[in-house]
């Protein structure tokens, strides 16, 4: 049966751990061995929306495993601009390639593509809904930085209301053992009840706070997100909170030495550049792990030998 990767909600704890393991296997292989895994295979990369890291890391991942890529990075110069439906595009492209990676502004687009396609479909972001490969690379990053995911104390910081990245990461981490969460956000951007409700049955320990300092002193991981000005109906409200959730070198003065700072990127000013050279900064390595994780994902879904 064809395998797809559409939503973190489809994966249980074992499957999440398996994906981390696929990444580790890739990481342990020689470049030469790696180039054989998907030799002769073609990946269709359909990006209806702009992206830097996700698209480039998927393409690099495929090329490093000996495969090739076709696709587009914006829909403007394609049949989509002539009004072609997503379903028709998928029915066409599936004949040209062995798997499809899709980013689309509409929620549920990847699921629909997977229903239609006879080749595996990977969701690289469907509107405000899911971005499962980001979550898997976040888990893989934690595994690499700490040697484990279980038992970590994770502070999710910033815009917890609208960030699909933190919602998915929270749901995934809640399936691991003894992960303790701290939700750090302005009152207006708190983690929505429906996101917490969806982890019903998990024993995750959650503390909510507006106090960033305390979270820095008492966490293993600070996962930063961007607070977007346009989320605030009142610009004054934005001015009040924007600096409270900005991380700079001085804010890390009381951080435990092993604390790592992650960010899905792109960052704007929520992490000052003076943090980059500290031992805590892990967001660029995180972007690197993204490529390895995506190699693991592609190899698994395309049935490559690991």
């Amino acid at each position, binding site marked *: 049966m064809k395998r797809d990767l559409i939503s973190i*909600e489809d994966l249980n704890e074992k499957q999440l751990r398996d994906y981390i393991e696929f990444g580790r296997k890739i990481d342990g292989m020689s470049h030469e061995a790696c180039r054989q895994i998907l030799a002769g295979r073609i990946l269709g990369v359909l990006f209806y929306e702009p992206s830097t890291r996700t698209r480039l890391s998927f393409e690099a991942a495929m090329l490093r495993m000996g495969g090739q890529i076709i696709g587009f990075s914006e829909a403007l110069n394609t049949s989509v601009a002539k009004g072609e439906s997503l*379903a028709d595009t998928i029915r066409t492209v599936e004949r040209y390639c062995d798997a499809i990676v899709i980013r*689309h502004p509409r*929620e*549920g687009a990847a699921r*629909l593509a997977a229903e239609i396609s006879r080749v595996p479909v990977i969701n690289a972001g469907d*509107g405000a809904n899911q971005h499962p490969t980001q979550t898997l690379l976040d888990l893989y990053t934690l595994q690499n930085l700490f040697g484990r995911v279980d038992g970590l104390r994770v502070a999710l910081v910033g815009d917890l209301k609208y960030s699909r990245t933190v919602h998915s990461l929270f749901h995934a981490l809640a399936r691991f053992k003894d992960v303790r969460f701290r939700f750090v956000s302005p009152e207006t951007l708190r983690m929505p009840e429906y996101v917490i409700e969806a982890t019903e049955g998990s024993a995750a320990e959650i503390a909510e706070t507006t106090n960033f300092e305390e979270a820095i002193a008492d966490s293993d991981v600070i996962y930063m997100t961007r607070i977007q000005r346009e989320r605030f109906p009142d610009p004054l409200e934005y001015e009040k909170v924007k600096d409270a959730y900005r991380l700079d070198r001085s804010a890390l003065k009381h951080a435990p030495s092993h604390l790592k700072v992650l960010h899905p990127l792109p960052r704007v000013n929520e992490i000052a550049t003076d943090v980059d050279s500290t031992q805590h900064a892990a967001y660029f390595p995180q972007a690197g792990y993204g490529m390895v994780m995506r190699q693991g994902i592609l190899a698994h879904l395309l049935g490559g030998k690991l």
Partner: protein
Amino acid sequence: MSPEQIMLIPKIENGFVLDHIPTGSGVKVLNLIRGHAELNESVISVGLHYTSRRLGRKDLIKIQSRELPQRFLQHLSLVVPGVTIKRVENYAVAQKIVLEPPELVDNLLSCPNPGCITNHERGVTTCFHLVRREPMKFRCNHCERRFALSELENRLKL
């Protein structure tokens, strides 16, 4: 028969009684019946604000029809979950069931999320899963948003 016992809505010889409709929802059910062409020729009697031991007040609708289409029943279960359906034969109740919403709602609704792909593609089949019973919540299989029943009752695909 004393005047208090006289039914304000006639007994039917054959057909169905939709009973225990929460008061105020009778009109919604009537609209639903109108949306199903198979029932357009049936004789319908409507009773609103009846006294009910269970509900205090209730609405009640009688449909003189040989059968109720499957799709109508599925829609009905979403508009008035827990409604009682009595099949009447020769003026007597032959069968009685309580209608609960299905675990899987297959192409009966359009998604209330305007950003959901199912609202932008032609000929897409929608699917919702019951993910919570109290309060009742359904999840769109595509955009993964969760909706209360009240958000879905205006989204019936008739």
